[in-house]
């Protein structure tokens, strides 16, 4: 029988998964599904599905909202806070260390060459993120043209700042039902 959820156990699970899984939110959420439902039995498939859906519409980083939600379901607000801190704090410390490292070695020609390669890969990754955001909605070319094309033109050509673009898209999307 799996162990009962305690704050220490919950924090340990979120610490382990949050700081060992590479690749961002989706692989992490898949790992949490296996751990929290299948292995620990702390969460139902239904709770997982609701948390997953609501995390998609919560501003910010989806996987953190997901962690806050499922930990809240398991151990309330304290569990939620502990889970978010356990998932972010060690990885954030690593991000600072990597930043310091990159900056310290920036003048070294070999390191500069390596960083130049990764910077180019990041640019490619951003273009692929654009594609991955647009691709699921290609069933409606008109909506893609209006919302994606409109946002790009408004910001690139006319210098409109992001907030009004997002606000207009939200209202228009609500009124123009798919």
């Amino acid at each position, binding site marked *: 029988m799996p162990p009962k959820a305690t704050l220490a156990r919950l924090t340990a699970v979120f610490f382990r998964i949050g700081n060992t899984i590479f690749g961002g939110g989706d692989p992490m959420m898949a790992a949490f599904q296996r751990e929290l439902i299948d292995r620990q039995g702390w969460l139902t498939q239904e709770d997982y599905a609701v948390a997953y859906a609501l995390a998609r519409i919560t501003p910010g980083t989806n996987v953190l909202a997901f962690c806050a939600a499922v930990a809240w379901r398991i151990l309330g607000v304290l569990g939620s806070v502990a889970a978010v801190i356990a998932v972010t704090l060690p990885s954030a410390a690593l991000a*600072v260390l990597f*930043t310091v490292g990159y900056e310290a070695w920036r003048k070294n020609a070999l390191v500069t060459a390596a960083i130049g390669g990764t910077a180019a890969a990041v640019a490619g990754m951003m273009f692929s993120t654009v594609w991955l955001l647009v691709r699921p909605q290609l069933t409606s070319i008109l909506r893609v043209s209006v919302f994606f094309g409109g946002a790009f033109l408004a910001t690139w050509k006319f210098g409109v700042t992001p907030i009004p*673009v997002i606000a207009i898209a939200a209202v228009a999307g609500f009124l123009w039902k798919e």
Partner: protein
Amino acid sequence: MNVFILYLLLLKATMTSFSGLASLPMVRDDLVVHHRVLTDRQLNTAVVAGRTGPGPNGLYLVSVGYFVDGLPGAIAGLMAVMTPAFLILPLMYWLGRRAETPRVKSAIRAVILSSAGLLLTASLPLARDAITGPLTAVIVAVSAIILSFTKLDSAWLMLGAAAVGLVAKLV
């Protein structure tokens, strides 16, 4: 820049985006274009630093905060990443399955599409900064294709790109 202002600017970026890197256009607009406390090169490095380690993609904001104001800035970045996550608690409590209503879904999908448009706008200057010759241009194109059409972990791609850059320098 005052660290609280930095926190508010980064929070504005996270509160108006729906995935890790989608906050990037707002960050660039505020910190690179308007306040000029960050350069495109630093922003690019921040994204690399955020992607090198494990954890959520949004952690590049910790690195952004570090560039702007050292350790206090990194903490401001971390707080800005964590804060919006707790908005889901009232949603879980009150909204439940109503989030699946067609109009709400339609609004969210429109916001996602416009975020993609904003991300494209933010990507172009970063790509211009990253492309320093034919090799980096090829890396941009190959990375975009690989990450668009395979499930490869981006951390491996970063590692591969670093190795290619290194080997090209040595040869």
